[in-house]
């Protein structure tokens, strides 16, 4: 009930669309296009977008290139730590179908099987203009209440979970926690 009210609230959607905060997390080649997008020339801060080091306060996760299984685990953990509503933009052809790494043994072929993506950008590598266009498109989708990747993830969690388990093995979450135990204080 709670999130249905939130979702249909026009005011909240309007507010959300104008304060998308990005998780500072880059994969693949695309990370190099973000500094120009963020700084003076293209300047995404005029749309109310900034990057934040805190996962819990962020709304937007950028997948900026090819994803290896090892990175995908981190992406899933980060994505699940973010609070609803949350959005994902995937840059370049690598997350779509692995692009030039189609025959690589260590690149995830279709990102959409593992986490829900809201906006895709085609190209290798997309220029800052393309990234800005995707951001504006995402803002429009959020405002109209159409960016519902996070809801898709909740509703089809079984499906995503099954694909993740098939790639990493059944108890991968436990094994990852064992690795991170040193850094977890509580």
């Amino acid at each position, binding site marked *: 009930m709670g999130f249905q009210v939130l979702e249909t609230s026009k005011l909240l959607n309007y507010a959300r669309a104008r304060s998308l905060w990005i998780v500072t997390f880059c994969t693949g080649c695309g990370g190099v296009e973000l500094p120009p997008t963020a700084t003076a020339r293209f300047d995404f801060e005029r749309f109310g977008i900034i990057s934040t080091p805190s996962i819990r306060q962020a709304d937007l996760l950028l997948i900026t290139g090819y994803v290896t299984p090892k990175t995908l*685990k981190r992406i899933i953990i980060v994505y699940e730590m973010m609070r609803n509503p949350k959005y994902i933009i995937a840059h370049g052809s690598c997350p779509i179908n692995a692009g030039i790494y189609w025959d690589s043994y260590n690149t995830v072929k*279709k990102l959409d099987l593992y986490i829900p993506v809201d906006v895709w950008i085609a190209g290798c590598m997309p220029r800052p203009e393309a990234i800005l266009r995707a951001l504006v498109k995402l803002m429009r989708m959020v405002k109209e209440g159409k960016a519902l990747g996070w809801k898709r993830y909740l509703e089809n969690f079984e499906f995503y979970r099954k694909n993740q388990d*098939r790639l990493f*093995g059944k108890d991968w979450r436990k094994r990852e926690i064992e690795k991170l135990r040193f850094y977890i204080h509580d």
Partner: protein
Amino acid sequence: MIEEELVRKIVEVFSYVEAKVKRVRRVEVKVSREKLPEVAKYLRSIGFKHLSAISCVDRPQHGIFELVYHLWSYENRVHLMLKTTIPRNKPKYVTMINVWPNAFVYERDIWEFFGIEFEGHPDLRHFILDYWDDIPPLRKDFNHLEYIKRKYGVYDPEKEYYLR
């Protein structure tokens, strides 16, 4: 020329190595696998303090792995390639951590991608390929396509989805 001097010096001390000048600032030294540790120690003592990389070449037609230690000397400005071969089935070699400590990472990398066990290496764990479940991927007999189909699925245009 400094390269020829170096070659002469090395061959004088170790009569069993094959050393030759490849070109300006490149020297190649071939040595059998039993003798490599002592040659390595000597090279380190005459100025080859920097281990830039260890590369491994898989030659299935000869049944060997070739290990190449790329060394750099700051005093002489010479790049020396120290080469040795090891048999391909159940490959095993000794670690060079006691000579160049940074061999730690390179040996772990080679263990991961070629499956060569380095005796005496304290920490042979997976580095990039978490939970790898096939033969090491940079060996020539690793079948990429079969692995990809099994692990990631294939695209089916009729269903517009990935099948496993």
